[in-house]
């Protein structure tokens, strides 16, 4: 196992609103190692996204220690490409904000866009692209600032099922090739199993870690779509499903 990229220790988060206070996370600890894909699954509204917001620095936790080695990239559920910018300029927004050398950034982004099949669309506007292409562009926008750790917040749930299976493979492929460490939040158990090395199951609010699964593959190095055919897939699915206790949530 490589070196530790992300370390979260006893993270707690309480939100204050006029109506009262909500304890979203009671205690959350997780270490993520270099090159690892870790998923967080849990019932909806259990504070999964809050963990990503804390990791990216958008939120200050009310307790605990956050340690991240290197830069963090954040990818959202929707692509949020800016309609008024071309694909190329959308992907350059990060370097622009961080006042990096735009010439070098442009060369890098163009290379990524070409490598991942968007070479003909550099100067197109987002509405001219399909959902899957837009999501790929959004990923490249995140990669443009060369992050060390990638946070993905339900990155596929806005896509229709067919597109989704392909896009998961595409994204997985890009992340592998760019040697990314990734933390993925999802409510889709199957997606989590097909995609990740480890799966962290959260309880309902206030969230604590219920269990962490290490996913073993019969044939290592396969794509997420191929992993779905793995004989152990069902077993993991049933275990995690039981753990999540989803029916209890729906009354």
């Amino acid at each position, binding site marked *: 196992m490589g070196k530790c990229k992300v370390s979260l220790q006893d993270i707690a988060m309480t939100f204050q609103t006029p109506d009262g206070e909500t304890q979203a996370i009671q205690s959350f600890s997780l270490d993520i190692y270099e090159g690892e894909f870790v998923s967080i699954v849990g019932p909806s509204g259990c504070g999964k996204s809050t963990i990503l917001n804390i990791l*990216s*620095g*958008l939120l200050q936790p009310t307790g605990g220690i956050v340690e991240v080695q290197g830069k*963090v*990239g*954040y990818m*959202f559920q*929707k692509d*949020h490409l*800016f*309609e*008024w*910018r071309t694909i190329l300029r959308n992907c350059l*927004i*990060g370097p*622009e*904000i*961080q006042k990096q050398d735009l010439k070098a950034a442009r060369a890098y982004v163009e290379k990524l866009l070409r490598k991942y099949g968007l070479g003909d669309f550099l100067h197109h*506007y987002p*509405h001219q692209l399909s959902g899957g292409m837009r999501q790929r562009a959004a990923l490249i926008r995140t990669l443009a*600032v060369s992050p060390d750790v990638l946070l993905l917040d339900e990155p596929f749930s806005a896509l229709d099922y067919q597109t989704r299976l392909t896009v998961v493979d595409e994204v997985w492929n890009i992340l592998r090739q760019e040697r990314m460490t990734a933390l993925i939040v999802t409510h889709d158990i199957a997606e989590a199993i097909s995609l990740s090395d480890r799966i962290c199951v959260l309880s309902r609010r206030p969230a604590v870690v219920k269990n962490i699964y290490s996913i073993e593959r019969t044939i290592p190095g396969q794509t997420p779509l191929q992993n779905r055919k793995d004989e152990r897939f069902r077993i993991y699915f049933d275990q995690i499903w039981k753990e999540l206790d989803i029916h209890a949530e729906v009354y």
Partner: protein
Amino acid sequence: MPKSTEISQQRRQYLRQQKARRVSIFSTQIAVLLIFFGLWEVAANLDWIDAFITSQPSRMWKTVLNMHSTGELYLHVWTTVWETIVGFTTGTIGGLAIAIMLWWSPFLSRVADPYLVVLNALPKVALGPILIVWLGNGQPAIIVMALLISIIVTIISMLQGFLSVDQDKIKLIQAFGANKMTILTKVVLPASLPNMISALKVNVGLSWVGVIMGEFLVSQAGLGHLIVYGGQVFQLDIVMTSVIILALCAALMYVAVAYAESKLLRWRL
């Protein structure tokens, strides 16, 4: 091969139909205009209507030629157009600046809220006499009237637009480390551009209302002045002519804004 020609034939037929439709709409529009003025002219000539109180196209045309030869026409048109442009520009820029301030400070925005509501509800014409006393019997009062009429609406609609920008888009660039200024210039303003332009379109109309109202109250020149003057001396030729010129000017200015819109919002097509 025969299949593709078949399709293109259908396509050609479709395009022909579309074109025929456009031509028939446009020619009907022209016909309505011609019939309206033609009927007006004929009715006045045959004494169906009293041309003294309704005027008639030929007399209006004479009035135009007359005002053209004395140069009066250009004085009045230019006075009104100038007042409108100044009122419109200051109203828009001022409104935009205040909207940005209110977006920047949610505290200020909460404080200003009830005042904006009251100022928006107040008919600005009521301030006319105050403006005359404060600014005198001239152009400044007219321009300020146009400005007041458009600025409050501008503030309210632009702020609304700023606040309705997708929060996730803001979060996205915050994750890249954006500060408030960057959020404003990279997301909030460009995302609100369509909103701003529709505010601009409304403002053009409102500025004309403000200027004409101002000219009704105080003025030595301008189309509004001509309309009031013509009414007072029972010269309906002048009144009607001025109204039509006014309509043309207002339409031209609106077209200019619509043209700017099509240029600025190319990414939407």
